């Protein structure tokens, strides 16, 4: 079976600005888009650059924009597309380093801002701390995040304001604010309760549409919003 990939290319050492290039390759219907990229890389142009590692949607390396939507290249197959003309772009609105590789430094800097680690102010017991199944259930979804960046890069609020913390960072804040073992709720809420934090989220739900781990990020943000608003009132 033949598919045509239209890939956005950019080599900082050669190109003034990004351009598109088409590659027609022979594939099986069960190929992942990642396999298609490999095929282009191995058979046609060794210079094509993209990140990848686990190849089954768990490491979060290969988020990119495929046919106008952010997804993991290793989590979609050729047969999932009706048209065999597939457009591949890097994650939108992040600085492109080369081809499909974007600069994630800003994304991770925002992750670090929300104090993404357990802060416990009490001495732990000799064995484990107890946590009820109900308390654990509160963070069931949030701990699945693989930091792929698909959500933040799909958020219109972030496109227009790159200081916005973005859904991924705030989901991480949720993960700790709602962990019954954590003692630093207030500090973390201070970080997200800022004009470039929670209040830039307009419940657009793009993040939820793209999350490869099917996390309902907006629901988590709404829980944080309520907590912050209650604090103010």
């Amino acid at each position: 079976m033949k598919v045509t990939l239209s890939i956005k290319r950019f080599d900082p050492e050669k190109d003034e600005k990004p351009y598109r290039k088409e590659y027609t390759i022979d594939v099986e219907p069960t190929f992942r888009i990642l396999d298609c990229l490999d095929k282009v890389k191995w058979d046609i142009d060794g210079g094509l650059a993209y990140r990848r590692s686990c190849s089954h949607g768990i490491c979060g390396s290969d988020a990119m924009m495929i046919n106008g939507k952010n997804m993991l290249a290793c989590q979609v197959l050729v047969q999932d597309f009706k048209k065999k003309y597939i457009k591949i772009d890097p994650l939108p609105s992040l600085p492109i380093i080369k081809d499909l590789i974007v600069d994630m430094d800003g994304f991770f800097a925002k992750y670090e801002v929300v104090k993404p680690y357990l802060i416990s102010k009490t001495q732990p017991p000799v064995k484990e701390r107890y946590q009820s199944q109900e308390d654990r259930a509160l963070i069931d979804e949030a701990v699945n995040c693989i930091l792929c960046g698909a959500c933040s890069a799909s958020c219109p609020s972030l496109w227009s304001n790159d200081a916005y913390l973005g859904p991924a960072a705030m989901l991480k804040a949720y993960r700790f604010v709602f962990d019954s073992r954590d003692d630093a709720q207030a500090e973390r809420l201070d970080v997200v309760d800022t004009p470039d934090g929670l209040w830039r989220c307009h419940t657009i739900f793009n993040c939820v549409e793209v999350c490869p781990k099917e996390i309902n990020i907006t629901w988590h943000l709404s829980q944080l919003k309520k907590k912050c608003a209650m604090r103010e009132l």
Partner: protein
Amino acid sequence: MNTYKFFGSRNSGAKNWYLQRISGIILVIVLIGHYVLMHATPDSGHTYKAVMERLHSPFWKGIDLTFVTLGLWHGLNGTWNVIRDYHLKPWVANTIYVLMILLGLTFWFIGLNTILSF
């Protein structure tokens, strides 16, 4: 990373967020009432007499005042929210903020003046 400093007014946005929703919900109720009234009984909205009659009742006066106040606040706060979605230089943002307050007050007084004159 401390670039996430705030610009514009001093609060974080939490209160505005809350009030935007509350005012919205009150507005739905008021608006639906307003619409039905205006168009279910066309005369009541479009003749001087009917309007006068309503404006003389304290109840309707109250409703209209709420409408003007909440509508303006909700609309302008919403607009301010839209503006804040862009990463403007602080002085630009602050200038717009002041202008919007002035604009809001002006229209509020005009509206108030009309309603309270009768």
